[in-house]
């Protein structure tokens, strides 16, 4: 039934989170060599009580969403208590791990409930999932005392982010705003233009397509040093690497797109005596749009990878690839992780923006259309 989704029967509750009730029977952990019992720690007890309390309170919930909200208070209490105790210098033992396990099982229940809600709240499930991964990463790296060289906790990465913000911004400007943007526009533009040309000159298409397969197999690490030798240390060599990487995907996608107009649609243009450019503009390019966006999306990731790898082979002392290679050598892994974060965010933002544009421009396409 529509509109009464909240009254749909909710999935049954598994008793998993109740394992947390065993936690008080076990040692909580140690501070400076002294063992601490679970009930000796007001923070641990408060976390456990809240967690179990929300399990009882969930009967008050009227729907999946409200139950998820109530239970997430319990999850927050379990995670919060754990983080607090770790921050106080506790070396965790079985009791704390059991509390964390209970909270995590409860989180599973919350996610399961949220996966079924619709409307604006549907974004809560993936958001909470991401947040939980960050928190678990933080707790596990701290609690298990993972060396920062291997994997720093997110808080350390965030701190490195803050202290190196100026450098990271300079890197971003050099790598993304200068090299990637120019190389991407050049590579995609050239691929598109040559595709249009090859559409009119058939031998070009037949000659270039086999080369495309070769080009896609060329390793970046081989091309990058050559381009640095040809074009120097600055952005030109990075843009050249990007052009090499993005040209053929764009060419091939554009050619496939131009060939995708249906026979009957072409016949219609022919019966109107529409010339080459008319049918290109009015029929074949609109038909090619989904293919063009495919090429643009693939290339957005390729361009970023190309620029960063190329910077390993020489830059004016700035750029994301330069930062990563030098900070690895100095064992400043938190800065490396901060750089990786910037790269990952940039890549997904670029891709997301293109996907959004695609959705708007090709809303008529069967994969997006809504009646």
């Amino acid at each position, binding site marked *: 039934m529509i509109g009464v989704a909240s009254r749909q029967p909710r999935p049954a509750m598994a008793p998993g989170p109740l394992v947390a009730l065993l936690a008080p029977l076990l040692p909580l952990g140690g501070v400076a060599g002294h063992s601490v019992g679970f009930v000796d720690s007001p923070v641990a007890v408060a976390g456990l009580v809240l967690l179990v309390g929300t399990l009882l309170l969930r009967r008050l919930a009227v729907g999946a969403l409200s139950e998820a909200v109530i239970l997430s208070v319990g999850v927050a209490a379990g995670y919060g208590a754990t983080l607090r105790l770790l921050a106080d210098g506790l070396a965790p033992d079985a009791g704390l791990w059991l509390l964390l396990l209970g909270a995590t099982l409860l989180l599973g229940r919350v996610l399961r409930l949220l996966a079924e809600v619709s409307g604006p709240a549907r974004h809560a499930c993936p958001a909470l999932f991401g947040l939980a991964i960050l928190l678990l990463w933080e707790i596990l790296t701290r609690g298990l005392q993972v060396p920062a060289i291997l994997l720093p906790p997110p808080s350390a990465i965030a701190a490195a982010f803050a202290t190196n913000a100026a450098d990271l911004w300079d890197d971003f400007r050099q790598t993304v705003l200068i090299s990637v943007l120019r190389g991407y526009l050049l590579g995609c533009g050239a691929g598109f233009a040559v595709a249009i040309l090859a559409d009119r000159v058939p031998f070009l298409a037949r000659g270039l397509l086999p080369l495309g397969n070769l080009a896609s197999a060329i390793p970046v690490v081989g091309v990058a040093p050559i381009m640095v030798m040809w074009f120097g240390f600055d952005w030109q060599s990075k843009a050249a690497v990007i052009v090499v990487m993005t040209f053929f995907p764009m060419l091939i996608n554009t050619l496939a797109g131009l060939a995708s107009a249906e026979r*009957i*649609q072409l*016949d*219609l243009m022919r*019966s*109107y005596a529409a010339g080459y450019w*008319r049918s290109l503009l*009015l029929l074949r390019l609109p038909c090619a749009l989904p293919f063009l966006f495919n090429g643009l999306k693939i290339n957005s990731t390729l361009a970023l990878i190309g620029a960063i790898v190329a910077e390993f082979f020489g830059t004016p002392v700035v750029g994301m690839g330069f930062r990563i290679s030098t900070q690895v050598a100095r064992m400043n892994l938190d800065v490396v992780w901060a750089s990786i974060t910037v790269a990952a965010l940039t890549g997904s933002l670029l891709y997301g923006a293109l996907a959004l544009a695609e959705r708007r421009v*090709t809303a008529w396409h069967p994969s997006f*259309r809504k009646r």
Partner: protein
Amino acid sequence: MPAAPSPSLPPALTAVPPPAPFAEPGAEPGRTIVDVRNLTLTYQAADHPVYALSDVSLSIAQGDFISLIGPSGCGKTTLMRVIADLEQPTGGTVLVNGMTPEQARLKRAYGYVFQAPALYPWRTVERNVTLPLEIMGIPRGERQTRAREQLERVGLAGFERKFPWQLSGGMQQRVSIARALAFNPDLLLMDEPFGALDEITRDHLNLQLTQLWRRTRKTCVFVTHSIAEAVFLSTRIVVMSPRPGRILDVIDCARDLPPERTLDIRESPEFQRIAHRVREGLMEGHSYDD
């Protein structure tokens, strides 16, 4: 008996035929507009040739409404495609108003309604109808009025802003009819335009089409599988048969049926007699299969 006054022009002017101006409304009826002679078309399929048309001769006069009827695969679509320069014949000649089909196509003589709607999904219904007008360089305001008028004629007023995929199959086909009408071609080629429609809508559009034809005297070539539809609309019916595709019979309807037609003439004995003859022709065509 005094000789009938000749309507023809003085010899001095007819000696050099005027460079065929395309039939403006009121061009003299009876002039041959499509002349098909000994047309043969063989498709070279992968293993064996398909004789889609074999020695087809047909002459269509200005203002004719010709229906092609015949079993599936007998070459009706192929014949229309040859006339419209969408297919090259392997033998014979086609002249359209004294020109080759290609010259006629370049003069934008054809309004072709394909067997499938062939709408562009990224354009709204209205912008689909204005597409040929855009190509012809007609100003925006006029494009819109013409599109609205034709959409109303096919019963789709109010759907201008919809996209084709938001319409049913029959509605899409009506959009494609409106598109062909809006562009006001000299020769309307319609390939089973009403095949996907319900009986009532079909009757309504048959009536609209015959009224339109009577008003404009536009030359129409129309493919249908419905005997009643063919008899109702046509001045002449061309019965075809398959393997190889050829013309079995050409039946004149204009002689026995009035040019002004309403749906109830379908009950008249003349109508029934012509329908019967078409049916006989079709059955004769089918007997070749056995």
